[in-house]
């Protein structure tokens, strides 16, 4: 593997990525660069391909066409030309370099909060128990769960569970953190505490790709906002350009529809 480490090279480089589920074309030629320390937010209607794109970056899905590189290394294939799929072992190594936080948390219910964070550190990074525990405690403290080290997921609120999910991902020191609608499954009053943690990570310079419906948050935290529809990127630009004065027709309808559902939700 060749690692390009010049600081201005993109951490994640997405070029012409296409993917189909059967006859359904979910990604249709996506190009995107994410540079170090950058926060890129992907918005778009459901079925626009944003979650699939995110899952391709850490090889939970494979892409049929194009190339995704992480620090210069092709993610799903041995090399971009021969398109030979990577072996399970190589995929695991690549996935360890990306962190993923899921909409439904997916904490391991049989492990405590600390053990959830420690599992990857011990079995993938090969750290000993004491060191892994120290790292886990440090991260859990940073996400505001200093008193929950030994709680099981079932004993935590949704917001707390999601913060453990974030700690589990960032403790691996990933090159990029992928957040997949991480507040969509939360009760409204718990959204804030999770977003505060993400904001903190952004300030600390973590590279992130965020899929979200929280437009206010996207505006505040992003360096770049990308609007996807029909498997391709329709608009991309600085948050104020994209969200404040949407010029594209489909983006306008998307944003206004989002507003109206929000209002309806609040009214009910």
């Amino acid at each position: 593997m060749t690692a390009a480490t010049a600081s201005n090279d993109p951490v994640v480089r997405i070029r012409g990525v296409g993917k189909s589920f059967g006859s359904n074309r979910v990604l249709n030629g996506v190009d995107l660069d994410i540079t170090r320390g950058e926060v890129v937010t992907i918005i778009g209607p459901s079925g626009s391909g944003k979650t699939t794109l995110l899952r391709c970056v850490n090889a939970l899905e494979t892409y049929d066409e194009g190339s995704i590189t992480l620090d210069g290394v092709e993610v799903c294939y041995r090399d971009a030309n021969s398109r030979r799929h990577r072996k399970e072992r190589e995929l695991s190594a690549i996935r360890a370099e990306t962190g993923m936080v899921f909409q439904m948390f997916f904490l391991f219910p049989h492990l405590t909060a600390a053990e959830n964070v420690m599992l990857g550190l011990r079995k993938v990074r090969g750290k000993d128990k004491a060191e892994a525990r120290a790292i886990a405690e440090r991260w859990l403290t940073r996400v505001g769960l200093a008193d929950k080290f030994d709680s099981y997921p079932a004993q935590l609120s949704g917001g707390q569970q999601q913060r453990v999910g974030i700690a589990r991902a960032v403790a691996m020191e990933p090159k990029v953190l992928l957040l997949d609608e991480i507040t969509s499954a939360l009760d409204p009053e718990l959204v804030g505490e999770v977003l505060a943690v993400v904001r903190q990570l952004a300030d600390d310079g973590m590279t992130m790709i965020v899929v979200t419906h929280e437009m206010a948050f996207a505006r505040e935290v992003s360096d770049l906002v990308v609007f996807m529809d029909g498997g391709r990127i329709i608009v991309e630009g600085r948050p104020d350009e994209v969200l404040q004065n949407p010029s594209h027709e489909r983006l306008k309808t998307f944003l206004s529809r989002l507003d109206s559902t929000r209002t309806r939700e609040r009214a009910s």
Partner: protein
Amino acid sequence: MELALYSLPFLWQGTLITLAVAALVAVFSLVLGVLLGTLACFGLSPFRWTIRIYCDLIRGIPAVVLIFMVYYGLPVLLSFPINNFLAAVVALTVFTTGQVTEIARGAIQSIHFGQAEAGKAIGLGFWSRMIYVIFPQAVRRFLPPWVNNLTDVVKGSALVSLVGIVDLMLAIQQVIGRVYEPMPLYIVGSILYFLINYGLSSASQRLEGHFAYIRE
């Protein structure tokens, strides 16, 4: 009293053989069943189909028939004799593995796919995901039906008496053959089988309590 003293050593020997057969079958079928159950969930499709067919075949054939097929049939096909103990253990293992595979498959499939994905996302390889993420959760679903199956194994082990292995069942028959007192001995035998199985299910209930902390 005389009868009891006379028969006790035979019955004790037989009980040990019954326990040995059941333990061997239980251990082999546990290892094979968990392996096949895992493959049935995550293996390549030819594996999955083969396992499917194997389990379905086993579901439709009585254990006795399987024992006779292995004990009488295999030596004929291989043209060398097989020890009856080996034949019986192999046949019962083949039979039980089919059931354990089904139990394991059901238990693994009851775990949300997101658990495997979360394991992938932190870079765990396939077997690490199984051992540290999937199995510890699946065990809670696996245990109750498996213990049920375990008592079936003990009960099924009585069939090995039909190929001349002196287990508890055959020991009872042999003692009856000498003392001509069928009823008391059958009753003693049924009490012994009951105690073995009852002990197993009580022990397992304690074990199940041990996993009660896992909640989704």
